[in-house]
């Protein structure tokens, strides 16, 4: 049953990987505010009707490259 070293090993690795990400998130303050994000996501398609004159074209250009 040596294969168990592979499956277990990979699983532990995966868990450690996610644990690292979790610590990083906590450290970066991703979870300090546990309310605002849930409301903010409701307002993410307040669309801009008209592009403002100058900068938009430039950005459109870079964005669509």
């Amino acid at each position, binding site marked *: 049953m040596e294969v168990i070293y592979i499956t277990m090993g990979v699983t532990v690795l995966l868990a450690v990987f996610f644990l690292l990400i979790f610590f990083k*998130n906590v450290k970066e303050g991703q979870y300090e505010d546990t309310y605002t994000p849930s409301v903010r996501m409701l307002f993410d398609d307040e669309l801009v009707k008209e592009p403002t004159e100058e900068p938009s074209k430039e950005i459109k250009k870079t964005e669509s490259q």
Partner: protein
Amino acid sequence: MEKQQFYYDNKIVKLFFWATIIWGVVGMLVGLMVAFLFLFPNYMEGIPWLSFGRLRPLHTNAAIFAFVGNGFFLGMYYSMQRLLKTRMFSDFLSKLHFWGWQLIIVLAAITLPLGYTSTKEYAELEWPIDILVVLIWVVMGINMIGTLLKRRQRHIYVAIWFYIATLVTIAMLYIFNNLELPVAMTGMKSYSVYAGVQDAMVQWWYGHNAVAFFLTTPMLGLMYYFVPKAANRPVYSYRLSIIHFWTLIFIYIWAGPHHLLYTALPDWAQNLGTVFSVMMIFPSWGGMINGLLTLRGAWDKVREDPILKFFVVAITAYGMATFEGPMLSFKNLNAIAHFTDWIVGHVHIGTLGWNGFIIAGMLYWLAKKLYKTELYSTKLANYHFWIGTIGILFYSMPLYIAGFTQAFMWKQFNDAGTLVYGNFLETVTQIIPMYAMRAFGGTLYYTGFLMMVYNIWKTAKQGSKVEDELAEHAPLKVISGKRAKNEAWHSWLERKTILFTVLAFVAVAIGGAVEIVPLLLVDSNIPKIASVKPYTPLELEGRDIYMREGCNNCHSQMIRPFRSEVERYGEYSKAGEFVYDHPFLWGSRRTGPDLHRIGGKYNNNWHFNHMMDPSLTSPGTIMPKYNWLHKNTLDYSTIAEKMKTLRALGVPYTDDEIAGAKASVEAQAKKVEAALHEDPEYVKNYGDSNMQNKEIIALIAYLQRMGTDIKANKTAQK
């Protein structure tokens, strides 16, 4: 800070939108075809590529990777851009991802019916397509991580975490489960590097997590985005959603062994699987409650809005399936449910209810957003909802009853200590009415889906053209990615945590796969049984035909150590008997009886006639005819290469055996054919039709060999 303007890419969303719909129509149609094969086994008579064993993998792959896969990408491409306030990282990668994935699906739809299969469930695709899958997955990964890096919103909303977990975990699992050695670089055929028990363990570690990370985490991500959007209120508890995510991913990855209870897997691993499976109920139900309570105070909307109705039933189905899952992981319940239709019912609560309805709700909602119009017909969507819901019930409930019925019939003894239903066929004909109801339920569900297709088509027609949307947001305060002048190299790398973790992970994964796997597996020290020998060349060819026809979709090769099974099939299966099985063929469902001890049970003529027309030997059977095996000439031109490949994986074929492989095939085929002459009917009808060259002979040789090595041992000892 000054705001920046940019465009959301809606064109790519539109592509995935229609791909989801088209593959939903195709995948479910194949599912229906398969369901009706249970009732009319021979309605596709004589067409090999439309036989059950080849269509079933096509159905599962189409439903999982084509329908749900495209549905996930659709929701991901729509929501990630908006949550992170940026266009996707690269338009080129987005398009490459889309067209690459569709190419994979088309290749799968061609190769699976042609019989190119590795037989490992939900990983049936052969090696060249596997490589393509990994490449396209990496393309998607780069696109996702790139988008994260250029985001304008610091906080990463919980839905995206579910997408990331999907990306990382599926990549790992897919690679490790599909490690296989091609027979020739020019051919499609390959053999799994793992054998027997080991292969089974890797397969179900993958299989379970395919459900966890392809059918669950992406859908949960979609739930956390589209349910609040459709209800226009925030998720019930954002804090709970974060706890939900982290507990779910940490517990889910350990639950795989519950697919192998009562097999040769070490007990501690089985128990570990059970413990974690039972624990799974907490994160699962935490998520379900969070989803449902998002609608608190909005139930009046649910009454009117079909989209919310779909979401409510989807989340409820998720709750049901994730209650059932832990329960089925208890050994005593598993002993009943395993190998029966109960599991098929359980799975379809998850797929039709949870995945299908989340995606349906999302499609309706996105149709309105993308085409900037109202639904063509809300009434029709309501009809879809009700027909679909009733369809799910008609699909699953009969299968639960069928599962219970069949399991108890299998185990029933009479006072004399013999099986009440000694003939397996009795336990099949008993549940045929349930199969009929299942097919009816499936038809209802499909009808509802087609109504949605029409509705969305009309909605798209009446709406405006899909355009990229202009949005604006302030950029993030940029921390330079470059190394500061006096900064130590490692401090810079630490600052770039994402880069660091990804690099470390990829490095270790590749290292692990390349070095550890062969080292551990080639000389495996599973207790070997001296009398268990590698297959002869002809038997090997027969086994490949068994795989090509997908026999493992209906027949298991794993006799569990229960009195009822030993009584019915013979000595229970030992780990040491499978050491040369690349891949393992234990199966997961007994539509027909177990075959592990079929060798020597019947004579060659029985098998010959049975494959020609199963109803000749077993009146009332639902097994279709496999009569093309009697017409096809056996192609054994690559037998030496096959044996060499297997030898590289640790099967002890000698040089002489490989050199004499072709001669050996011919000699054994002649013997098998000669034995058929015992039956005067055979001599009369096929006596001089060169049967020894046909595929059926190889298959008979394999079937007659199966599970006999141990019996040989016993007689030798006596």
